[in-house]
């Protein structure tokens, strides 16, 4: 009955409103004006590994090192498909998720191990991994059906088929920690036995407690990606903004499915890593260029957002690249050697800012 009333009025779960960017999320141009550490095509997965930072560009694993004021990037290895996640053990061991549905281990104790199944379930969409000790790998699978590169389809299909696993690298035994998550994308081991993941399609950060999820931070105005340490707190990156129109399309199932069947994903009315580059992309009324200017508050399908959270996962401050900007699609952000690094997957750049900015 209440559901029917909500449906009639467009309230409750039928509401298409999105939370405002306010308070700690008040917009600024810090990401837009940030300096570029290195240019790379679709960079992703910043992971500190000792004195260097690992990141990926397409199917190449790269390392980034600081040279005074500058940064230098080197290619380490290449893989059969795009890299979807990186986990560093800290003493040489690296786990790399590949878009063809495998996780490879390089260096360390389990060098050469290849995982393509967990508990007889094919590993379609590895989205995040982290070592909990030398022999245990925590792994997030975003979806049962869509590889990570088809995240947009997974969102528009409204899937909730993600899961989190703990894998014993020595025996190969896998334990399911949580299931039916809406695209777990970021993973952080917040303490001994404390596993925190971002649930992208539900715009929230949750902790996994005994197979269930406990909400730590909800109602984000964007789709959260990865989570990294920042002193006591965390850096949370959001790779795309939520918008009223997308929320509406998500609820219009017939239109949404028809759109997915008939139109290239690039041109869907859906969130994107970067937008406004092609005349076939959908445009929203508020995003019309007036007198040569695209207003930064205009509705947009892509955005750059990196949020600093405190130890209790409450937002402290945020860095933005707003509508019409270049540094959109922030998929990862970390703190390293007194600097903040972030990958703008839409803007093809690794960004660097001083820590206190």
């Amino acid at each position, binding site marked *: 009955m209440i559901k029917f009333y909500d449906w009639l009025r467009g309230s409750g779960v039928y509401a298409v409103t999105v939370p405002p960017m306010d308070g700690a999320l008040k917009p600024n141009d810090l990401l837009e004006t940030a300096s570029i550490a290195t240019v790379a095509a679709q960079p992703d997965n910043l992971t500190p590994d000792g004195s260097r930072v690992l990141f990926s560009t397409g199917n190449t694993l790269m390392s980034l090192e600081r040279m005074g004021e500058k940064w230098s990037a080197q290619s380490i290895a290449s893989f059969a498909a795009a890299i979807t996640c990186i986990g560093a053990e800290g003493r040489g061991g690296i786990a790399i998720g590949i878009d063809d549905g495998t996780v490879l281990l390089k260096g360390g104790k389990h060098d050469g191990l290849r995982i393509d199944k967990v508990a007889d379930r094919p590993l379609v969409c590895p989205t995040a991994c982290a070592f909990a000790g030398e022999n245990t790998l925590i792994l997030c699978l975003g979806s049962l059906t869509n590889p990570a590169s088809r995240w947009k389809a997974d969102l528009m299909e409204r899937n909730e088929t993600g899961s989190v696993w703990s894998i014993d690298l020595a025996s190969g035994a896998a334990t399911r920690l949580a299931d039916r998550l809406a695209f777990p994308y970021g993973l952080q081991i917040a303490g001994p036995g404390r596993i925190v993941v971002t649930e992208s399609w539900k715009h929230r950060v949750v902790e996994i407690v005994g197979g269930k999820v406990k909400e730590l931070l909800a109602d984000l105005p964007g789709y959260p990606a990865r989570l990294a340490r920042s002193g006591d707190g965390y850096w949370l990156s959001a790779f795309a903004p939520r918008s009223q129109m997308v929320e509406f399309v998500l609820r219009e199932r017939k239109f949404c499915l028809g759109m997915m069947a008939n139109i290239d994903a690039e041109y869907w009315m859906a969130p994107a890593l970067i937008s406004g580059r092609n*005349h076939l992309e959908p*445009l929203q009324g508020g995003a*019309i260029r007036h007198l040569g200017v695209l207003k930064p508050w205009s509705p947009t399908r892509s955005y750059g957002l990196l949020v600093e959270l405190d130890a209790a996962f409450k937002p402290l401050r945020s860095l933005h690249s707003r509508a019409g900007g270049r540094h959109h699609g922030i998929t990862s952000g970390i703190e390293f050697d007194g600097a903040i690094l972030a990958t703008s997957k839409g803007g093809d750049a690794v960004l660097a800012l001083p820590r206190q900015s």
Partner: protein
Amino acid sequence: MSIGENLIRLRYRLIPDQIIGELLSKSWIDTCIPASLLAVTVVVFAAIAPDFLSLDNLSDTGRQLGELGFIAIGLTVVLMAGGIDLSVGSIYGLCNFATLEAFQGLGLPLWLTFLISLGLGGLVGTINGLLIGYLRLRAFLTTLVTLIIVRAIVQTAALTFGEAMTGVAPDRSAWDFVGDGTIAGIPFSLVALAILAVAGHLFLTRSRLGWHVQAVGGSRRSALNAGIPVRRTVFLSYVISGLCCAVAGFLYAARLTNAGPEVGNGTEIMALTAAVLGGISLGGGRGSVSKVLLGTTVVLLITNSLVAMGLRSGGTSFILGLVLLLAVVIDVRWTKNRQKILARVYISPTYFSLPPCPSTAKDSGSVFAANDALTSAEPIGLNAVDGAEDVIFDSQGHLYTGSRQGDVIRFLAPDYAKSEIFAHIGGHPLGMAIDAQDTINVCVSGMGLYAVDQKREVRKLSDQTNRSLFSIRDDSRIRFADDVDIAPDGRMYFSEATVRFDIYEWASDGLELRGNGRIIAYDPRTDTSRTVLSNLIFPNGICVSHDGRSLLFAETWACRISRYWLEGPQAGKVEIITENLPGYPDNINRASDGNYWIALLGMRTPVLDYSLKMPGFRKRMAQRVAFDEWIYPNLNTGMIVKISDSGEVIQSLWDSTGEKHPMITSMREHAGNLYIGGIFNNRIGRLPLPNADPAWTGPRSYWGGR
């Protein structure tokens, strides 16, 4: 096309959804609530009440209607002025008693009795008016006090003089006629009411004081600021109410000759229920005589039927109270939400389908392949223009354009570095056409077709056309004149993009995709306008062909160009010459090589094209999603195409990034250059055309060399 899609198309073709919104936007729609209420009451009580439809019953109800109607109309005047009069019942009782006392007790003639009654009613009304209008006491409390005091007077008088009323009256026959007589079978009191109703209607809608009453009730502060004597108006409304009650009391006395002190008890509740049920807003300002009469009829039917059904008088009051409560709720909610409902239902998208969009990829080899030819255009009036929808040149080579502030701006030849305000019109100038005398004929948004001559005199040419036959809303006014061109015989053809929306709501029309636009011909010889083509899908650019025998026009949302034959064997016929453009065509103008330039204001996007087949989706989008979030055409890309006389696309010029020329609304070739205008852009672009005839200008092409 699937069966489902065919069904959708059929459903939207057969059911004209837009009618609901258009009906709701009519002011008489308010009356529908009491009218339907009346219908329901009649049906219900005809079914359950005994003898409901008998002649006796109806005649009796008619007489009561005469009396209560007077009171309710008086009360309506007070309510519409923003007040309330609770003392109507006791004034009614007072006048009833006074009439009987004067006529039967004192034996005065009937006319004098009537005057005494009027005088007494007017006196109480005057007291109310003085206290509330001039001393500005609260209407509710003040009239409550007069209600009590007057009722006390009536009771005292009834006890004191009640027995002295058995005297013989001088002219009995006239008295009986007032009480029981009929005129052509209609009770006298009902005839009197009919006369008052007509007078009251004329008073409220046609007289100065009536307008003042509505203005004061609508907004007291605004009325005061507008110089309306608010206090006097309020005062007079109570006097009118008192006088109306006096007549009602006189009629009642003649009908029943009942001098009891209880006459008029609870009448104020009946009258108030009647008024509110009829839709007279308690907040003031809104209402009409017809509505209150509907309400009165409903109330009387209910009370009489309840009495006939044997309900005790307490029960009748109880039900009447409930009805009043219901009416107040409806009144408050309706007044508050009417505009919201209208906004929700007004936009009514329909089914439309476009063929697959032609390829525009850079390497596609298609004539529409994206390029950046327009980015080399140099700017004119950079950051000085705002709203340059169209650009045009006179025979001296000066450039004219419009501005959002309502001016016609002139850039001076030859370098267009200097500009001046040529004339101020007041509305946003859109499409322009220049005649042999260098007079600029211009479509002005919200105003119509105007002319500005070289003496800078602004003259209105046309702001209305013939009303179409079956339109619910009056579409004779021109709201959205868009582009104009002049035929060789001097007649001006101009497009009106949509008759359902104003210019700032153009996107709503794009969402509807209904044929809401038309082309109108203005004949300067007779100074009249006539619609020549209607039901066009956002007709926009218009251009008389090089040979002057036909007219090309663009239908923006339909992405097509059509030809309308002005003369020859096909005169009056329309044929589509270019279909399925990759963008939305705006203005059309002549090119020096005998072809035509067409500005595309935006590009088609796959998502928007797909949504055209799903009108339900677009309607819900309009209702649920904020205006600024709607899916629009991609207006951040600019494109100009050239078509031949037969409609074949020859060339396309792009600014694919939209950095310099997004949303191109017009272009005009002049002396070897192409000048580019955009309604939202901050510049006019000048692009040299290498192969164009440098001697060719618009005025020469239209009016010959000089």
